[in-house]
């Protein structure tokens, strides 16, 4: 398969990544809509204080920004970020029966995307020997905290994906 332009990434890999980002964004939006409809938690801004106290980590994507675009660094940050969100979504399990299917779909798609990135890093020979893990996760002690956490994680994930999308687009440009 033809290589991506300024990168040694196959074009089909980049197209698949862009598609997966769009799919996860759609899943994330579905989760946000249901949290708002079912539990009236619609605005992440009104949950910032709670977010600070829960200590919800946010991954870096500095190597994917246009100013400092660095292929290996971008893939590695993208992979670690996706692992972090995989962990956060797992910590939200038991969010509520109505939301469980939406959360499961989001988690499956994030896991799929992380696997693709990892395998591409292996194919490029830039994957570390041992696959990293996502580190300690916040504990969501009540149903409310899982729902509020869901709003915050989904909103952070959308911003993370937006940055990832731009980075991948730079890499995909002919």
């Amino acid at each position, binding site marked *: 398969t033809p290589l991506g332009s300024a990168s040694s990434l196959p074009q089909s890999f980049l197209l698949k990544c862009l598609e997966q980002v769009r799919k996860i964004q759609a899943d994330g939006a579905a989760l946000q809509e249901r949290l708002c409809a079912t*539990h*009236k*938690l619609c605005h992440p*801004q*009104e*949950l*910032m*204080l*709670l977010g*600070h*106290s*829960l200590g919800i980590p946010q991954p870096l994507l500095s190597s994917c920004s246009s100013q400092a675009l660095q292929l290996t660094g971008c893939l590695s940050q993208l992979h670690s970020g996706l692992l972090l969100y995989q962990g956060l979504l797992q910590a939200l399990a038991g969010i509520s029966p109505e939301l469980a299917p939406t959360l499961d779909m989001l988690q499956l798609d994030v896991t799929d995307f992380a696997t693709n990135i990892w395998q591409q890093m292996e194919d490029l020979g830039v994957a570390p020997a041992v696959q990293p893990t996502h580190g300690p996760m916040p504990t969501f*002690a*009540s149903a*409310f*905290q899982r*729902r*509020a956490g869901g709003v915050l994680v989904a909103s952070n994930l959308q911003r993370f994906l937006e940055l990832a999308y731009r980075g991948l687009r730079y890499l995909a440009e002919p």
Partner: protein
Amino acid sequence: ECGRIKVSAPIVRLGDPITASCIINQSCSHLGPEAQILWKLGAELQPGGRQQRLADGTQESTITLPHLNHSQALLSCCLRWGNSLQILDQAELQAGYPPATPHNLSCAMNLTTSSLICQWEPGPDTHLPTNFTLKSFKSRRGCQTQEDPITNCVPENGQSRCSIPRKHLQLYQNMSIWVQVENALGTSVSPQLCLVPMDVVKLEPPTLWALDPKTEVVPLQPGCLRLRWEPWKPGLYIEQKCELRHQPQLGETSWALVGPLPSRTLQHELCGLLPSTAYALQMRCTRWPLPGLWSNWSPSLELTTAQR
């Protein structure tokens, strides 16, 4: 944890008061000493929160909502932070009524499914998750003594009927049956029914046929008609009596009743009717002389009486 709501009771009677307290601990960073705790019910701010600083430095606000008139509502404990209102905890409040006593409990033994089907009037909506259970036990004389209990019958999603399968029934023994209703605000039970399943057997109606005029040996008298009927197959082993009703197809006329009749006859002649007039005929049967419930009326058979 930043903030924690405690409510006097998560479920109260509709219109009753409800008291809640919210404790904000110091670890909820960036908080000035006099952080003001605010309450929201749904999207509306609720005045009347009484706030105090506790010995351990935490802040506690208590609020009493005089009348909770929503069957479901979200109570939020908030803090003003910069120019935003931060939600720190939410409690799902529910209000409704304890279960009313179910009434008009009635049962019929269904021979098609070989099950005892009971139904009842559930009473007004309680606005709360409410569980109905059909309970019963086998008994000897007139349900005074309880012998072996029968497995509870749980209706399918919110229906007011339940079907006790054959394997839990002794068809010719007394059993006591009642409905138990339960929700967070209480329990109630219906009056007990004491019955013998077969004594409430409800048959399907018999099938009516006109007789083939060609095979008629004796010509019909004016104002007469002939028909035959057969009982419902699965009820063949049950001795029955039946009733026939007929009505001329002439505008507003009422049914005339003929009975008791045997559950099967190869030929029955009905006379004394208006000549050359179309009649609608229906029949129903019941277990007899042993007790039973009347079947529904059969679909109509249309026959025309002989001319003058």
